[in-house]
């Protein structure tokens, strides 16, 4: 093919022009317009699907569903409570900082549940000031109440709760997109799912290492580097110095000790020196002992903070906390600038995956698996084969039957059916709809409905002929009398298909898509194209008999 014709639009234009020329010389005037119109539409479909299957790793024009090419389909639930809790924790921290700064004494500030916190035992003389702080910092989206003297209860409004949930899901989707990109999956689907607003659908066609993909998706990857105050093999001994209570500005984090299976507890400052948000880049590497590690670079803002804090705390230990557990806690040897290393007991693969998720950023909340579907590639190939065999058997049978039963008119029907399938595939290629195994069943069913339209028309024509009408009148009457019937049957079938389409994603949606497109294509092919063919073949001659 010359390069100019590689462009589908040019190709379509050239073929249509050729058709128009042929029609001008070869067809009667009243048929020309329809011939060019119908023909150019079919040519557009043909151009759209070419080439249907991929060669040499190039994707074909027809997208195959997961069930046909193998891959993973996951439905994940975003634990939005995580994000709400984090917001409340931030709020509590703000209140503490502000009260301390203004010298207001209070008994406690703490989280009540996922959407509210309380401030209690404020000294009576300063209640007004405490009130001012709360109203200053929690103006929009919060509901402040005073159930007792010196007691405050601050609760998020439903609007804010919804906003946070929505934002969390959106952020999670963005993060997952970045992570999936690093896996190098072609045509992934990552989208909101269901009606609850907290589910995400992830489809990764063609993925072979299922376990790795799942790990990379699931890791929350919350990274925080915090200064270590104390360590101990048990939580009790760790808190002896502070009287068994965790101080307000500190927290206890667990980590692996020197001997595997032996936990070590770290008392760390609550405020992080840097977090995952301060990272510019991360990559897997090896340390001087050839053990795998992850090296990171900080963005300028993070680097400033890191430099200041490490310079101030030389000799202290810094806990590297990943998803709530300490990976390692190296001692700060000297001031560190914009680069650092995360060591731990990583395998090479773990280090590689960790660097990937750190690059892609942390998830704003953890994820729960609700549904998982994996299809092996060879099972997919088996499905394609049986789908094609079933379709071929159906098409072959219908062709033979129509030719035997309706003779030359049967040929007309077969041409119409071919046009029907061509339009169906063309529309699927054009809209990027996915062909699934049930979708193939949908094509077979479309062919069945297409035959029905032809049979309706042909039987009506036969009836008209039996009643003694001339051939041409019988054809006109036949087509016109069944038009209402065809409209009604297709409308009801479309109603059913529309509800099928509501039935969520995946293979069933693929089925509904083929059914809907097929039904519409059917009206065009089995009614309009078929009628045109009759008029074309009969010509202007005065025909006495019809091969039907």
């Amino acid at each position, binding site marked *: 093919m010359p390069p100019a014709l590689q462009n589908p639009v040019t190709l379509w234009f050239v073929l249509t022009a050729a058709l128009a020329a042929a029609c001008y010389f070869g067809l009667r005037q009243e048929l020309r317009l329809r011939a060019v119109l119908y023909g150019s539409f079919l040519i557009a479909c043909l151009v759209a699907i070419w080439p249907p299957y991929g060669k040499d790793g190039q994707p074909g024009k027809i997208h195959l569903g997961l*069930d046909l090419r*193998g891959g993973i389909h996951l439905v994940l639930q975003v634990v939005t409570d995580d994000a709400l809790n984090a917001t409340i924790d931030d709020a509590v921290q703000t209140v503490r900082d502000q009260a301390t700064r203004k010298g207001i004494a209070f008994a406690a500030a703490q989280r009540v549940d996922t959407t509210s916190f309380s401030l209690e035992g404020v000294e009576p003389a300063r209640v007004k000031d405490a009130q001012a702080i709360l109203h200053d910092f929690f103006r929009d989206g919060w509901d402040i109440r005073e159930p007792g003297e010196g007691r405050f209860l601050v609760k998020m409004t439903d609007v804010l709760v919804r906003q946070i949930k929505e934002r969390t899901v959106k952020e999670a989707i963005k993060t997952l997109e970045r992570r999936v990109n690093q896996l190098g999956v072609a045509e992934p689907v990552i989208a909101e799912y*269901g009606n609850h607003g907290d589910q995400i659908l992830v489809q990764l066609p063609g993925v072979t290492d299922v376990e790795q993909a*799942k790990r990379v998706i*699931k890791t929350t990857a919350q990274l925080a580097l915090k200064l270590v105050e104390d360590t101990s093999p048990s939580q009790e001994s760790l808190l002896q110095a502070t009287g068994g209570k965790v101080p307000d500005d500190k927290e206890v984090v667990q980590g692996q000790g020197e001997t595997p299976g032996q936990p070590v507890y770290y008392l760390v400052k609550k405020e992080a020196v840097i977090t995952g948000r301060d990272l510019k880049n991360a990559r897997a590497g090896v340390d001087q002992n050839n053990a795998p590690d992850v090296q990171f670079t900080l963005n300028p803002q993070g680097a400033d903070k890191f430099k200041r804090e490490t310079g101030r705390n030389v000799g202290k230990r810094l806990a590297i906390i990943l998803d709530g557990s300490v990976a390692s806690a190296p001692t700060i040897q000297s001031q560190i600038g914009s680069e650092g290393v995360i060591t731990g007991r990583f395998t090479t693969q773990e280090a590689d995956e960790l660097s990937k998720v750190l690059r892609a950023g942390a998830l704003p909340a953890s994820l*729960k*698996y*609700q*549904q*998982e*579907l*994996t*299809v*092996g*590639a*060879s*099972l997919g190939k*088996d*499905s394609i084969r*049986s789908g094609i*065999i*079933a379709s071929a*058997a*159906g098409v072959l*049978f*219908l062709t033979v*039957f129509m030719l*035997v*039963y309706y*003779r030359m008119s049967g040929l007309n029907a077969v041409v119409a059916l071919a046009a029907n399938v061509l339009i169906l595939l063309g529309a699927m290629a054009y809209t990027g709809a996915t062909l699934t*195994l*049930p979708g193939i*069943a949908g094509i*077979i*069913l479309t062919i*069945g*409905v297409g*035959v*029905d339209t032809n*049979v309706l028309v042909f*039987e009506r024509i036969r009836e008209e002929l*039996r009643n003694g009408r001339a051939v041409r009148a019988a054809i006109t009457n036949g087509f016109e009398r069944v038009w209402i*019937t065809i409209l*009604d*049957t297709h*409308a*009801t*079938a479309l*109603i*059913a*298909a529309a*509800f*099928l389409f*509501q*039935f*969520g994603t995946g*293979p*069933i949606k693929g*089925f509904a898509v083929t*059914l809907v497109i097929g039904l519409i294509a059917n009206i065009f092919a089995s009614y309009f194209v078929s009628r045109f063919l009759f008029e074309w073949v009969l010509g202007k001659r005065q025909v006495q008999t019809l091969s039907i």
Partner: protein
Amino acid sequence: MEILKNPHFDLLGKARYFVAASLIVILSGLAYIAKDGLRYGVEFSGGIQLILKFASAPHVDRIRSAVEKLAPGAVIQTYGDASKNQVLIRLSGELKGEVENAGKPVLDALKTSYAENPVIESSSEVVGPIVGAELRRKAIQLTVLGLVFQFAYIWFRFKGAVWGAAAAVAVFHDVMVTLTFLAFFHYEITLNVIAALLTLVGYSVNDTIVVFDRVRENLRHRRKEPLRTILNDSLNQTLTRTLISNGTTFLAVLGLFLFGGEVLRAFGFAMVVGVLVGTYSTVYIASPFVIWWQGLKERRVPAARAAL
């Protein structure tokens, strides 16, 4: 070639026996389902389904003994063509713990106690209980809504509730009979089967509309005759089309059932039954229903006729 030349059967004469037979089938189906319940696929019941491809011909007994300790009562059967060395394992019911990696313990157990025949490829489907319950609710809701909308459409198009109601009753009958057959033959209700049922809702109503359309046309110039005669004539006039259209569709879905592979078998079965029942219900459920409805209102037909 013609299979029937100008048929004139008294199709509605024996209608009451067929209606009775349909009722018996549906009631026994309901009783059977009430007693044994429908078998839901993993996407509805929640649980794990694994399809494993082994290096050589697998021994189901060996697999069973390897998996039994882990999951008592697991369904284990060969899957697809025997030469493919495939086995299906299903652990249904409540999942313990997380959905994530739920199938891994099974694979690990096989790796240790059936090491000589390794799994070379696996497909898995893991569904949490929430998703399953939601799907069940959605499936019923959508089927009912589909019926309601079709009822409304036909009511509107034929300007009479009787036609919409007759079509809806016939379709409901088809869905119930198909469900009965699915239950009798121990097919599972999977997503694909629900798709087949919803398709039937569309397909079966087609048939009914073709006949009603003919009734509408006949009523226009045969106003004096009783509705029963007109219905019977319309059924006869469309009989050839009914037999050919449904016959060809039947054979096409039969091909799906026979050659479509494991995944489409239940789908094909539901369609095969549905196409047959859909044809039957137009003649013996929808049409008698119209006559019965009109008979309830008055002995004659003016209402339905006046509407058209």
